[in-house]
């Protein structure tokens, strides 16, 4: 059960990283959901001058 859970967590992190990376390449702030998954504070991210 925990194994399944951690595999799922790895995949969701990977997916969030992929989505966030493609968003920043376009000078856009990634979706809040992706940032949450990655443990990034949304407001701190907004403060970066993209």
């Amino acid at each position: 059960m925990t194994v399944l859970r951690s595999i799922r967590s790895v995949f969701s992190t990977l997916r969030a990283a992929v989505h966030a990376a493609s968003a920043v390449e376009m000078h856009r702030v990634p979706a809040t959901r992706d940032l949450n998954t990655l443990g990034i504070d949304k407001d701190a991210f907004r403060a970066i001058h993209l």
Partner: protein
Amino acid sequence: MTSPEPQNQRRRDTAALVVAAGLAVIAGVMLWDSARLADLGGYSGVGPASVPRVVAFGLLGLSLWTVIAALKGDFPERPAQNVPPVLWIIAGLAAQLLLLHVTGFSIATGVLFAFTARAFGKTNLAMTLPIGIVFAFAVWAVFSQLLMLHLPAGPLEHLLFPGA
């Protein structure tokens, strides 16, 4: 800056429909062009026209998909744009293109330099234009005389480097 959840904006996206039309036009041009190629497929059955045709059909499909996405409002929100600076840069590039063979590299590129600086907030062309021309001339001297790049010379370049 922000991209709201797609659920909030299920509206028709006219600009995206224009993109879809553009893709369809490109596909049409490719199909028309491939039709006049003699298909020398030989043994393989795949000639010079085959790949353009495949790409064109791909573009047609993507055009259709874009229409669907546009109608559903699936495109991300476009950041609000300040149009005048964008036009200044385009004008600078166009001016350089037109002037290049008339006035030579330095003056044409100086205009581009000044117009770009204008787009980013240095509005005093009387100052930026001379700076741009001098800078572009220095670049011309280094790259055409030392690195042997072919950069078009104009009156200014001939004046200072009579051999150019």
